């Protein structure tokens, strides 16, 4: 039986959005030759239609991913990823290597390159953190955007020669260049790290056919990863508030601004707490409330309401005698015991020796696997989008569009043209052309995003490959021949009462579903509700104290959400694909985190 998804050429652009579709660069548009290939919708990273500017994330990431796989580490059976966008949805396709001679050639290269990384992992990773810190500092040092009426006198007298308008272009290009560079760092270790982890994972699945993904993850998971720090800082601030005796302003439902003002009114002690807040914020509040792939995944630093909403309950716990310290030593001992217990169950000494070899490597690579996201997807990405936002503010100030956020409806090429337009206008002393050009396009694209969001898109396109032998696709997206078959049958099966996802954290809970599509809606959650969202993210962890379970559209067994949910002892099913569309707000549902199943009860 031949099975196939719709061909790319059969996908129609939603009527009325053709011009918005045409805004994406030509190399992201599907062409007739793409019908020959298999594509899948990257709902894991891009669950929502892409703003024109945000498509830079796919571009920069796939440039770096492909370079690492194809040319740097030379993965034997796979090269990079091609990307297309239609109706704002990102489809990607892998480039596999099937010619045995080429695989052999690439294997010889791979062993020399990847093994060097494994052998020198700790040193290279320490260097990597320094490189990332430098990159971040460079981005932080980019100057504020300014077009003064006259070039400042001191610039003139210093013989600077280059006028202020030029620095707009310079800063923009550095901003963009830094983002592309960051993604290279992101992928410098990623596939190798995942590969080493999955080597151990695969061994466990063979030795213990019924072991859960999370048991394997628990044997490997680190204890000190950067991604736990933001929440730890929050707990620290709760302790400090109690120590300083300034806990009274922290009440549920009080706006952040009011809390900050009340603290100032408390005098020296209040100021001490505010100083501690500043220490924590830099850098640990540079965490986005999403995966960081969209400009509207704002950080705690940009919007303190999320971290502050957790403080009243943390403070209550501190006052009740709970130090809120993560019992790192205890967690570490538990991990050691877990490993010893599984090891003991292995059937042969040979297996125990192989197990030791594989888990040692998994432990070496895992700090990167867990830690890189803070530097890349959170801290750097946050700086990047905020710098673009600064350009948005400048352009909006010159009438290019109504609001600074509108800048994200321009592609990065278009944004450059708008900047050059403004530079010319400043230099000529004439009005810019942009205000007559962009507002209509922005309005059109805003409407398109809304239209596309309502429009379902197939999970995959084109002919289904016989086998998926591409470690990148399997590792990063969890896509296998089996999962494609499941998608195909789901397409024809119609409605069922069950949603399946990754078993992220065990436990069974029934309750009221609360669909939360953005952080703004978090206040709708009541104690005991089940959070249903597109992405669960560890930066949402403070709200995990309130909810009974979590369900998400995206995320896999490698996701931090799984790790954090387990830490909170909360049932979680991630990567259901459709939870926010299939579940109604207020519906009764059952979440079985051990099996990865969500059941609709009414």
């Amino acid at each position, binding site marked *: 039986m031949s099975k196939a998804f719709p061909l790319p050429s059969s996908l129609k652009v939603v009527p009325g959005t053709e011009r918005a579709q045409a805004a994406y660069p030509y190399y992201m548009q599907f062409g007739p030759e793409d019908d020959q290939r298999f594509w899948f919708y990257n709902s894991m990273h891009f669950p929502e239609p892409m703003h024109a500017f945000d498509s830079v994330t796919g571009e920069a990431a796939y440039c770096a991913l492909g370079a690492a796989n194809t040319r740097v580490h030379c993965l034997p059976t796979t090269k990079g990823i091609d990307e297309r966008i239609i109706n704002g949805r990102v489809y990607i396709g892998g480039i596999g290597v099937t010619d045995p001679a080429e695989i052999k050639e690439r294997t010889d290269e791979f062993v020399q390159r990847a093994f060097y990384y494994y052998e020198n992992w700790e040193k290279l990773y320490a260097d990597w953190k320094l490189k990332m810190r430098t990159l971040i500092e460079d981005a932080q040092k980019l100057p504020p955007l300014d077009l003064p009426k006259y070039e400042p006198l001191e610039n003139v007298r210093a013989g600077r020669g280059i006028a202020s308008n030029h620095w707009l272009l310079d800063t923009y290009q550095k901003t963009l260049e830094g983002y592309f560079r960051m993604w290279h760092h992101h992928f410098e270790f990623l596939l190798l790290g995942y590969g080493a982890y999955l080597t151990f994972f695969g061994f466990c699945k063979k030795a213990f056919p*019924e*072991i859960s993904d999370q*048991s394997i993850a628990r044997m490997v998971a680190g204890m000190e990863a950067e991604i736990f720090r933001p929440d730890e800082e929050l707990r620290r601030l709760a302790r400090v508030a109690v120590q300083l005796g300034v806990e009274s302003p922290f009440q549920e439902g009080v706006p952040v601004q009011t809390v900050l003002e009340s603290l100032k009114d408390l005098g020296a002690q209040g100021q001490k707490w505010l100083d501690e807040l500043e220490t924590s914020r830099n850098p640990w509040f540079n965490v986005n409330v999403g995966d960081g792939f969209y400009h509207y995944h704002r950080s705690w630093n940009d919007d303190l309401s999320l971290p502050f909403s957790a403080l009243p309950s943390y403070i209550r716990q501190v006052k009740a005698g709970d130090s809120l310290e993560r019992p790192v030593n205890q967690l570490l001992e538990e991990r050691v015991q877990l490993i010893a217990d599984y090891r003991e169950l292995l059937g042969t000494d*040979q297996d125990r020796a192989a197990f030791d070899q*594989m888990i040692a490597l998994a432990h070496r690579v895992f700090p990167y696997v867990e830690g890189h996201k803070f530097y890349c997807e959170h801290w750097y990405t946050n700086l990047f989008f905020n710098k673009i936002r600064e350009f948005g503010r400048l352009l909006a100030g010159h009438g290019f569009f109504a609001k600074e956020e509108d800048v994200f409806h321009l592609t990065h090429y278009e944004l450059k043209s708008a900047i050059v337009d403004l530079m010319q206008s400043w230099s000529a002393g004439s009005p810019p052309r942009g205000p007559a050009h962009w507002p209509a396009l922005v309005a059109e694209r805003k409407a398109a995003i809304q239209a596309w969001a309502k429009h379902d898109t197939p999970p995959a396109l084109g002919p289904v490959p016989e086998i998926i032998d591409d470690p990148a696709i399997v590792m990063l997206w969890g896509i296998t021949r089996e999962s494609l078959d499941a998608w195909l049958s789901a397409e024809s099966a119609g409605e069922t009462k069950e949603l399946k996802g990754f078993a992220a954290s*065990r436990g069974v809970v029934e309750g009221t579903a609360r669909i939360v599509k953005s952080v703004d809606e978090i206040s709708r959650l009541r104690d005991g509700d089940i959070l249903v969202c597109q992405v669960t993210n560890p930066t949402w962890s403070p709200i995990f104290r309130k909810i009974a379970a979590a369900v998400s559209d995206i995320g896999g067994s490698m996701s931090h959400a799984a790790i954090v949910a387990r830490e909170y002892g909360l049932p979680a099913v991630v990567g259901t694909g459709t939870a926010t569309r299939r579940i109604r707000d207020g519906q009764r549902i059952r979440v079985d985190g*051990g099996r990865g199943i969500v059941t609709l009860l009414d």
Partner: protein
Amino acid sequence: MTSDLIGWFADLTLADRPSVGGKGGSLGELTRAGIAVPGGFVVRTAAFEAFIGELERSGSLRARVEALAAEDLDAITALSSELVARVQQVPLPDVLRAALAEAHGKLCAVDAGSPLAVRSSATTEDAEDASFAGLQDTYLWVMGSAEVERQVRSCWASLYSVPSISYRRRQGLPEAGVAMAVVVQRMVDARCAGVMFTRSPTSGDRSVIVIEGAWGLGSAVVSGEVTPDRFVMGKITGEITVREIRDKHVRHVPLAGGGTAEQETPAELREVPCLSDEQLQQLRDVARRIEKHYGRPQDIEWAFDQEGTLRILQSRPETVWSAREAAPVAAVKDNPLHHVMSIFGGRN
């Protein structure tokens, strides 16, 4: 008090199997390991021997069985019905009767009518032998000394059933070695009961515990008359990875006058899980202790009584997967890094 004829669980170990059978030895071993096994005693093989000696005095028995031809079903049937009747009717020797009554009195000191289970306990260790007809008799909810004696005789008599004699004749087994112990044990008034495996029966995975249970006495599960709920738990982590809640349409319940009956499960219970998460964790704990005690995977029968107390009714070594040669999952590599080629090297 333990004697040649009667052995109390607390005094027995697996080493006593020749005189108390596999079940009796295992229950003793579990009791001594501190596992919550319902109290009881074993009517040892010596008691059976004493009784057979009594029977032989009023006419040859074993010699006549040995003289039968394996294929002469008519002769086997005729002798079987004669011997079964004699085993059930000839009075016990006084010393035996007294010992049984004394043991019963001690086990049921509070209430002489306490319900008991009477189960045959074969002395052979071979699983295939143990499963042959007649050696698996179990009588549930037996009340009173006289009933216990009657069912002990029933267990003994099963050795002279037609299939049992036929089997021995086909195998050419000497009758002198034929003996049986009988377990007499307090009955658990089970709210729910079932079996569990400390190694997955389907995959052989030693890292999980598979639990099957249903409402009422465990006999409904063991006999296959009800489709039980099925749970799979991480042996080490305790996570419950599989929950299959089934329509448990019937349950076995005790009868007021003794014995048990199959009953329709009340509608409100049929599709409700028979075990809570806490109970599953209790089962896991005890399964791990038993497996650790024996040093190998076990198949275990368990029951929760009406008050929610867990009792272990039986534990046997797992035989199917343990008999297989365990091939290593992966070879040790001179350079551990070569393991990653299982991910990056393609399918070859």
